[in-house]
């Protein structure tokens, strides 16, 4: 069973055992607008929770994608740099940014579940 968690920076993280897939949420892609550039981390890159992990840029602005938890990158989404608009079209599916190992599962406790994130977005807008 996978579980979906969210950060206050509008990343989603799908947890399967000790690994996770990370991307940005539907709300985040909407706020960002048309994504024109993506930089994903390479395999083996060490990530600290809250640290910069990837880059996403729209026509107007550059944003960082932060690591939701600590761990090590196992795969960056190699398809994204050549098709950055995938982030707009399918942010929580094909638009994933990277997969990683989870070195400290207790960090997941600080993240929001779907209901809490929905409320977080509603309150912010």
């Amino acid at each position, binding site marked *: 069973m996978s579980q979906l968690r969210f950060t206050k920076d509008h990343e989603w993280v799908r947890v399967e055992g000790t690994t996770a897939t990370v991307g940005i949420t539907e709300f985040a892609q909407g706020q960002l*607008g*048309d994504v*024109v*550039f993506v*930089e994903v981390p390479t395999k083996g890159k060490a990530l600290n929770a809250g640290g910069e992990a990837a*880059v996403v*840029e*729209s*026509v*107007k*602005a*550059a944003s960082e994608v932060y690591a939701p938890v600590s761990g090590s990158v196992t795969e960056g989404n190699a398809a994204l*740099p050549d098709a950055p608009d995938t982030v707009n079209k399918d942010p929580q599916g094909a638009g994933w940014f990277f997969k990683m190992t989870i070195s400290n599962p207790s960090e997941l406790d600080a993240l929001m579940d779907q209901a809490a994130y929905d409320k977080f977005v509603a309150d912010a*807008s």
Partner: protein
Amino acid sequence: MADPAGADLKTTPLNALHISLGGKMVPFAGYSMPVQYPLGVLKEHLHTRAHAGLFDVSHMGQAELTGDDVIGALESLIPGDLKGLAAGRIRYSTLLTETGGIIDDLMITKPAEPGSEKKLFLIVNAGCKEGDFDHILRRLGSRIKLTRFEDRALLALQGPSAAKVLVRFAAGCDAMAFMSSRVAKFALASGHDVDVRLFRSGYTGEDGYEISIPGDRAEAVANALLAQPEIQPIGLGARDSLRLEAGLCLYGSDIDTTTTPVEANLSWIIGKRRKLEGGFPGANKIIEQINMGAQKMRVGIQPIGKAPARAHTEILDEIGKTIGEITSGGFGPSVNKPVAMGYIQTAFATPGTKVQLMVRGQTLPAEVVALPFAPHRYFKSKS
């Protein structure tokens, strides 16, 4: 969002229209303005270059100067030749500090209509308008009268279809020369005419018009234009990417009081007669820069890879020495690659010069290029 714009922001006469069109409203120069509509920045940009777009630029300052020697008076604040400006024509110029810095860039129109021989029409930047008008009054108050048109709206209709759309409402406007202006009747379907002033000018590099309209008729005019199949509403986001591709300066980013027109690569705005006679603020410094060269120049910067370089990105030479800074940068939807401009030491300003950009702690290859990135497609009159 409830009211992201906040309470203290001014609104334009088209505010209700922006909201009904789904505009995403953001604070800009003290106004609540649409940064984009549901189409989104990328498609709005491409639509403008393919067809035409309608922009609300009512936040900009509109004013009329009147005086027996209005031309001589305004020439004392700008480097442009207004004496040589024909009636009905528009000149792009800059208000200058005593050291030749740019207080603002503006459009100056010499109206052709009878009775307007002692008048000039000004359009200045929204964020600068209070300061500009104060400056003009302080310097010229005894020589001219300044009338602000706070109640007028300003629309920009930009793109290759602009003329064929506007001519449906304003007969003959398609024959207007680039950088010309005249008053016109905008014929609404209701049979009512709206008195407007047309300018064949813009901020996208495309053919198009700016239309000054009484504020209370602006929504009717905008709706009439938006009902045309070629037209989409366009927000400030695409306005910025369009002007950047066109190599046009954004005040406060690419030009300000620390840059002269020569450094800004705007030497063409300095009239031949003005170069000889001087008599404008900072003339000594500016004329010396024309003759001897300036220390830094505004240039186009083409990042070689896919990563955009944003404003304030450091420009380095091939051995890693800082030689300049990006002042505007982003992604150019029409050229489909990153585009930027910035200031660089003059020794490196030749197109083709290889440079590096410091982006997120890494150096990325780039090249100095001639502006614009997207070729200008202004209207050329058949003579």
